[in-house]
């Protein structure tokens, strides 16, 4: 069904897949408005955001195109509106008046700018245009440069504002559009990608509205509640669900620098897994140091008695961590037991002769250190991940969880867990309301727990055929 027909889908196929919305111009007129019905709210930058030459343009998540046949589209930018005019006579410098051969399309009111068609130099915006027979006398908003405009210079006139979004999601095109021509609002690629797969989720705003409709009101268990309470519990619920129920979708591809440290992502709450990427693109898990090493929170400079030394601001002076320096300079193979190069250290047990004699018989091996992928640790003081030296310059994938509240796009819940969130909010409100019978609170506590369990099972994405395939690898055949 290409056209939304009352279901939950409100975008057409074109809006979803192509990320554009097309309009047929209903009448020949200036300042016509076109209302976007994308699920994605249109975003524009500040300043002259309709002009690709401005910084604000880069913030836009939308572009506007026009076409006479809906086949060939032209992006509506100031440059695309250029039309040529002919200089009537050389214009003197240090004054704002320019004469051009009469052109009915040129009007005053700071709508257009006068441009050098060859160099692109903007002489100024046209404040007034007065027709004197075959000549239009243009008065610009600023004086011409001392050189003026020499005879024979090719000029063009450019519309200053091509389109605007004065109110949310409504695009207004200032130039006159002809009836039955076409306008297209096109989302940028990143905005389109953000929208792909969004049907898997329900926005938190919808959850809050739905909850207020369905769970709150006269004759219901929650007769009235402040919307801010619902917002709070919904957001807290999303945080809790993000920690242990929802899928971890946040990941970051990074290269470990020679300093062996990477800053923790801005929306990081906890890591799921860190892996380095080998030449085949296969991930190899990097393990935490656990009890092997830990970055110190304080690294005080000490006097001979061991007391911290204070600096001029009466705070304890700090020095470079020796723990970190030692850890960074180590050879991880000496820890993992990959090989031995020093018989005098604690790895003497891995001496070649001993190792060869005990081939295949490494009793007492500690699995958590017997790996060659490398280690990472988190320096809580600096807010960084630190890696062992064998990972320098390697590409890693950091998978982590956030709390679902960092960005607007995060504030959504998978539909598979939507019901659990309703129960979470209901329980939280009932549990914190005075005069609610305890059996009701308990009932909702159980309901929340059961629905959360269901959500976890659903989101675990357990597929029977995948289990069968894995079990086939174990030579354990399952019939189905």
């Amino acid at each position: 069904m290409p056209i939304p027909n009352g279901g939950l889908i409100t975008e057409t196929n074109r809006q979803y897949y192509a990320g554009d919305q097309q309009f047929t111009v209903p009448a020949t007129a200036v300042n016509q408005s076109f209302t976007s019905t994308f699920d994605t709210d249109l975003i524009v930058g500040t300043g002259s955001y309709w002009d690709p030459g401005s910084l604000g343009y880069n913030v836009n998540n939308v572009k506007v195109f026009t076409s006479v046949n809906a086949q060939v589209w032209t992006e509506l930018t100031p440059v695309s509106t250029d039309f040529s005019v002919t200089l009537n006579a050389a214009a003197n410098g240090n004054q704002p008046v320019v004469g051009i051969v009469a052109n009915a399309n040129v009007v005053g009111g700071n709508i257009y700018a006068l441009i050098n068609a060859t160099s692109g130099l903007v002489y100024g915006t046209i404040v007034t245009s007065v027709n004197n027979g075959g000549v239009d006398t243009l008065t610009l908003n600023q004086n011409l440069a001392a050189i003026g405009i020499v005879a024979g210079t090719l000029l063009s006139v450019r519309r200053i504002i091509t389109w605007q979004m004065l109110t949310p999601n409504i695009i207004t095109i200032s130039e006159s559009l002809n009836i039955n021509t076409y306008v297209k609002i096109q989302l940028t690629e990143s905005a389109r990608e953000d929208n792909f797969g969004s049907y898997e989720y329900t926005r938190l705003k919808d959850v809050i509205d739905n909850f207020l409709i369905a769970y709150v009101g006269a004759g219901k268990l929650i007769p009235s509640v402040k919307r801010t309470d619902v917002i709070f519990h919904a957001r807290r619920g999303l945080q809790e669900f993000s920690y242990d129920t929802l899928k971890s979708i946040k990941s970051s591809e990074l290269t470990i620098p020679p300093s062996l440290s990477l800053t923790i992502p801005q929306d990081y709450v906890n890591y799921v897994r860190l892996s380095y990427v080998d030449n085949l693109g296969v991930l190899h898990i990097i393990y935490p140091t656990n009890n092997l090493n830990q970055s110190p929170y304080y690294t005080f400079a000490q006097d001979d008695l061991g007391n911290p030394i204070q600096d001029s601001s009466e705070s304890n002076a700090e020095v470079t961590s020796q723990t970190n320096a030692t850890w960074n300079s180590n050879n991880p193979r000496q820890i993992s037991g990959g090989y031995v190069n020093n018989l005098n250290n604690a790895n003497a047990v891995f001496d070649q002769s001993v190792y060869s004699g005990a081939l295949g018989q490494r009793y007492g091996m500690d699995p958590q250190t017997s790996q060659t992928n490398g280690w990472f640790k988190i320096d809580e003081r600096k807010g960084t991940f630190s890696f062992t030296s064998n990972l320098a310059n390697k590409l890693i994938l950091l998978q982590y969880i956030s709390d679902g509240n960092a960005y607007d796009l995060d504030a959504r819940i998978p539909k598979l867990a939507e019901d659990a969130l309703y129960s979470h909010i209901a329980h939280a409100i009932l549990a914190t309301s005075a005069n609610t019978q305890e059996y009701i609170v308990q009932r909702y506590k159980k309901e929340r727990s059961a629905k959360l369990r269901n959500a976890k099972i659903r989101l675990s994405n357990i597929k029977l055929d995948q289990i069968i395939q894995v079990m086939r690898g174990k030579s354990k055949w399952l019939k189905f």
Partner: protein
Amino acid sequence: MAINVNTVYQTVLLILNKEQRGYMTPLEFNKIGTQTQLEIFETYFESLNQQIRIPQTNVDYADRVLNLDEKISIFKTSGIPTYTAPSFSLPSESGLAQSTETIPTVAGTVAYTFSSITANELSSGTVQVFFDGVLQPTTAYSITGTIITLTVSPVAGTPPAPNTPASVFVVVTLDDFYRLGTVTYQSGALDAQELERVTRSELYHLLSSKLTKPTTHYPIYLYENKRLLVYPTTITNGITVDYIRKPADPLWNFTLGTSNQYVYSPNTSINFELHDAEQTELILKILLYAGVVVKSPEIIQVAAQQVAQENQNQKS
């Protein structure tokens, strides 16, 4: 849908005059009628609060909450508040409650006294003055008390207005804001959002909490001194206020007949705005006050019993 003021007045007179108990003048009736209408109107909100806590039947016409809402719905209206930094002022008048009067002018006379529009209405409402149907600027007249004084003296001769008005038509739109209802915000093509009303003590916590900080998706407002302070403060337009307006004061207007009797003037009278279902209670309550006016304990007693009985039936 309104209760005819003449029907009520005639019924009251009929009951009062039986056995020659007394008479109620139109002036007394108008004042008691206004009082009674407001009294009944105010009970709606308390009754709604009581009924909303009681399980209702969904049989047609028997749901008391719906019935009450139907009575209140007559007075539901909406308006757009005006932003004057840093807050919005409430719409003071719905435009539905108006007092009008037509004054024939006399050549050479600049001052005229209103006969039906009161000084209170003139001072609290918005006045529009028309000369022969043309709206005049405020420089064309001045109003003091119940006297309107024209800036330019009318002269004899054929109109047109404004300098030689044959008649002055005055419309007073009354300030009828009563109770604030839902406040909504809409910007561009975005969905309308309801604003939540908060108190000042809550406001500071809400603003300082990152989880509950107001946004354009979830705006909030303070309601203080008849003004709305909307948060986030970037919202300076797009606010709509739903509210309950006051009922217009009833007016049984008249002309004097040939025997100096009161002759009902339907065109200049104002009916009771209450729901038709209130006619009985309205008459009984007016009778109750009328009993006080004519000093008849019997009337008071019978009317009070009837009103009490009706209330009991409505709420039991």
